[in-house]
């Protein structure tokens, strides 16, 4: 069973806030979902398959040379707030 405390701890790790009103139903949902995830425990795990990546790919590295990328102005276009080429986070709002 997952407790209220565990849900709050996990939510904090995930940077989500949970209101007291949401906590009961969320804990109930998460218990169902984790109970469902627990069904993998019935599978035998006597051998590890060493699963690494899906197509057995290995890294391909390019030459370490400078290339043009997006401009700073473009990158900042979607920001809530920016100043002098920086993202801005106001201390309080």
């Amino acid at each position: 069973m997952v407790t209220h405390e565990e849900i709050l701890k996990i939510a904090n790790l995930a940077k989500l806030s949970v209101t007291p009103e949401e906590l009961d139903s969320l804990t109930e949902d998460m218990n169902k979902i984790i109970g469902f995830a627990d069904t993998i425990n019935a599978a035998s795990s006597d051998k590890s398959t060493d699963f690494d990546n899906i197509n057995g790919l290995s890294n391909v590295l390019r030459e370490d040379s400078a290339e043009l990328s997006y401009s700073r102005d473009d990158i900042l276009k979607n920001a809530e707030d920016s100043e002098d080429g920086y993202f801005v986070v106001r201390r309080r709002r």
Partner: protein
Amino acid sequence: MGKYGKIAQLQEMLSSGEISCTELTKKYLSVIGKENGALNAYINVTADAALKTAAEVDKDIAAGKELAPLEGIPMALKDNISTKGMETTCCSKILGGYVPIYDATVWSVLKNQKAVLLGKTNMDEFAMGSSCETSCHGGAKNPHNLKRVAGGSSGGAASAVSGNLAAYALGSDTGGSIRQPASFCGAVGFKPTYGTVSRYGLIAYASSFDQIGPIASSVEDAARVYDVISVYDKMDSTSSGQKEPVLPALENDIRGKKIGIVKEYFDGVRSDVKEALLKAADVFHSLGAETVEFSMPSIHYSLPVYYILACAEASSNLGRYDGIRYGYQTEHYTSRNEMICKTRSEGFGAEVKRRILLGTYVLSSGYYDAYYKKAQDLRGAIVQAFDGAFSKCDVILAPTVPMTAFPENYAAKDPVETYQTDICTVPVNIAGLPAVSVPCGFGSDGMPVGMQILGPKFSESTVLNFANMYESAARETSFKDTGMGVSL
């Protein structure tokens, strides 16, 4: 080519001068104006850009230029595919107002061909859902019955194609999100081998599962689109591209080929859906293919394995939404931590939060080995089970979904109950295989039933060949035009 290819037919009309691309585009925009209100397939219609491209296509035709394979064809993109200068939101409040500064590779490839983009289609928020109803715009409706869902997560794409509001659409498939809505809406949905179509610019849900593919109104059309978009891309570290075009293989003889029927795929499948699948198997017998039955017990674990791994990847991928660099930011806060937590809690919907929490839980200290590590081991076992299966047969035939389209407001029920409807689609994503969903008849409720044909990695020409041979033999009894949208 075959007689059901809508794209070839439209291109013939364009190059013969029967209709101009501008007229064709206006025709689509006009029916979208009339019918999208009921279907909710598009969440953003890009009329100006569409007409601008159409005018360029008309210039090419006037100049006597040969049309590129998808040039001038009106189409749609799922809203998780980045379009430079056009809002892309994954149907989430947290990406409200986000306008990408670059194109997804699939879109830049299509744009270079002068594909006519009609708009962005509705989807479950961040592609997390099976009904399209977790979208912040409400769900897309099913053109076969407006009281039923279009499915998910690419519900808007399937609804647009089935309602003839686009000639084809691109969706994405992480656990069935192309095939399931295609099945519900009576369209063809193709999820290619992982890596064959670039994911660059596809907003990430679960990176080792996500794959872009087409939803179309015939197998030929799906193959035509796939041949164009399956290019190697250095911007995607998992890109492999495609070796050979699939279109020339569509009419290959399938006599003597073996179709696997896997017992576990039929467990819990509704009887009318099972019946439609058995009839489809008979069509394959009449085409000279053989069926072989066998068992794959590890399929039983594919659902929890999928949800553990996909949510783990999602919890990491969605960590980027902090309200600072793009998208929604909360109004009031007193600290940076509070700003981020409030932004995320207000910006994400309930299903996305549940999946982030599950993903964070299975990756957290003390639980990693029991869930994430174990699920990765089982993923490897499922890959091996498919390798074994394809030593016995060329392709596997399975239902796409154990039932037909759900009634609307389905997402309101128990989350686990919804997850369980993905049982037939997730195994393919776990193993990175190609699979196509093709309409194969109707359920007792009159709604379309879809069957899946799946094959080993990089066997797209084989699975589409089987699908096309079936369609050629049984289109009359398996497909139904919805009578909506543009009629040719």
